[in-house]
């Protein structure tokens, strides 16, 4: 019995993804974002940033900053107000998995 518990404890971390976010769940949750940021995060309007291909942890930070009013935007504040930690991670996982932004020297 003890061995079984030990085995479960040792293998559990292996089954977890590298990031906590689920891109498929993120896509489902991204409907309110589409109007400004585009269907896959490649916004066509210059005033709204592209999110596709952006780093996962930067996206999480940006949303958290809007939520905490560390970044102020009358548009983003009400959009992120009710997002849970899980929602934020899923959305970040979805947008960071899309093709778009690139590293430029």
């Amino acid at each position, binding site marked *: 019995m003890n061995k079984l518990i030990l085995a479960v404890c040792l293998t559990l971390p292996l089954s977890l993804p590298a990031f906590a976010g689920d891109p498929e769940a993120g896509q489902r949750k991204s409907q309110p974002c589409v109007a400004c940021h585009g269907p896959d995060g490649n916004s066509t309007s210059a005033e709204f940033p592209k999110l596709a291909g952006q780093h996962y942890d930067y996206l999480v930070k940006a949303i958290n*900053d809007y939520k905490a009013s560390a970044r102020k935007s009358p548009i983003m504040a009400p959009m992120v107000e009710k997002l849970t930690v899980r929602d934020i991670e899923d959305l970040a996982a979805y947008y960071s998995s899309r093709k778009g932004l690139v590293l430029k020297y």
Partner: protein
Amino acid sequence: MKTCRLISLAAAGSLVAVVFSPAFAAEAGDPVAGKAKTSMCIGCHGISGYKTVFPEVYHVPKLGGQHAAYIVKALQEYKAEKRSHPSMRAIAAGLSDKDMADLAAYYAADPARAAAK
């Protein structure tokens, strides 16, 4: 004849007004001039997987392909101290509107198209 001269004077005047108006200057970023101004950016934004470590740890955002208008807005917000990253505030504080427009034009330029040229 006099009317003619008046009209051309007015036309020249409005051309000068357009060229020197702030709105025009804000949109006219030069990507070549922008590339020459990236020395302060590449140490963080030009290194694959680079993370900022102060005050929080996270990957610095990718800029390649981002909208120019959004990049200018972000830099202006750092300069006005409306966004909080200490390094970005310090760097943006030394940038003119023209510097911001040039940098934004450089980073916004489609990398695939730029490479094909």
